[in-house]
């Protein structure tokens, strides 16, 4: 009885309904329910983080043990992880928070994580070019329209466009504010209705694939 899908489906229903009803009640404690629930999610996720780390480190540990082809890199990952956690703990003890300006934890953040983040992010400059080259072919009317709009807007965004015609940047703005906005709004309305559908299917237990 306890093991079945019954209780989880009831929990989902109950929590979902509480969320919806509280939305209309400003009185405590219902008024802050959205904030509270997101905090609670963070707490649950905080515990679950242990499962995640177990999954990640476990996988690389197995690779290491098997002497997998890339075992060395698995070692790098495990060492990187361990070092960060150890430094984090030491600095938490030393400064009260690992996020202190002078802590080595912050150093790791500034000189390892930040450059890695921004470099990965900047790969997009290359990928956006290769994707455009490959995909923007005038296969049919819609594809042609897509590539022409893209080119116009690309030109309209740089000083070059202004030199070709002063109207180009203005036209770009118009495209962004009128047809672009219309389609975005239409897509957005569809998404909201779709979200309603998904939520209601979940709350009413019609969709239960997330439970085994």
């Amino acid at each position, binding site marked *: 009885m306890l093991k079945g899908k019954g209780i989880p489906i009831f929990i989902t229903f109950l929590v979902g309904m509480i969320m919806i009803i509280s939305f209309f009640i400003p009185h405590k404690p219902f008024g802050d329910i959205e904030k509270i629930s997101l905090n609670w999610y963070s707490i649950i996720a*905080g*515990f679950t983080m242990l499962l995640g780390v177990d999954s990640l480190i476990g996988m690389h540990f197995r690779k290491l043990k098997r002497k997998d082809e890339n075992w060395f890199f698995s070692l790098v990952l495990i060492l990187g992880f361990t070092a960060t956690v150890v430094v*984090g703990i030491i600095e938490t003890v030393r400064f009260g928070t690992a996020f202190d300006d002078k802590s080595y934890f912050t150093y790791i953040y500034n000189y390892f994580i930040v*450059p890695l983040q921004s470099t990965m992010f900047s790969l997009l400059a290359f990928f956006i070019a290769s994707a455009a080259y490959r995909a923007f072919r005038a296969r049919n009317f819609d594809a042609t329209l897509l590539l022409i709009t893209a080119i116009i807007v690309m030109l309209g965004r740089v000083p070059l466009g202004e030199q070709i015609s002063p109207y180009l940047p203005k036209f770009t703005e118009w495209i962004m504010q009128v047809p672009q906005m219309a389609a975005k709004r*239409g*897509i957005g309305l569809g998404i909201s209705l779709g*979200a309603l559908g998904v939520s209601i299917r979940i709350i009413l237990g019609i969709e239960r694939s997330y439970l085994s």
Partner: protein
Amino acid sequence: MGTTIGIWIAAGLTLFIYSFLYKDNPFYKFAEHLYVGITAGYWIIYTWAYVIQPMLLDPMIKNKQFILIIPAFFGIIMLTRWFPQISWLSRWSIAFTVGMGAGLGVTGAIQGFILPQVQATLVPLTGFNFETFNNFLIVFGVLTTLIYFYFSKEQKGVLRWGSKIGITFIMVAFGASFGYTVMARISLLIGRIYFLLSDWLKVLR
């Protein structure tokens, strides 16, 4: 000194990541695994410092907010996944979190998007001019786009034409937002090149 070493580390990692553009290689593998390892560790500490301590322990111990036993309970039974005999308990936590998402989804969709966006489409016209034409175009675009997302009838007749025009609007929008983003992406690259050329190699001045 620490800064100089830091800059060399940062520059090295930057180049390692860029080497991926040529092909997968040991340098990228090194940077990638280091990145994943470090950030996984970073998030553990982050979760402690910004979630478990301030959201759970402090309020519970200092302010006696025992209601927090509920999320703690669901968090802990998530960990029953380590013990196959009782791992079914973790489904309760999953049901709890999914329920929160679904509940927030309902009111969020109505208040956060549907009502304000429909309202935004209702614009007082200022007379028969270019602005009115633009408003008409927006209304027309929203309607045809919505027709494209009409699922429960076969797309024939009016629906077919409507959804065709809708997809045209969608394609224009995609082209525009693609083109609009290029500049920001190139800026990111310029930023990294700046860093390499000025902070590291010091050739820019």
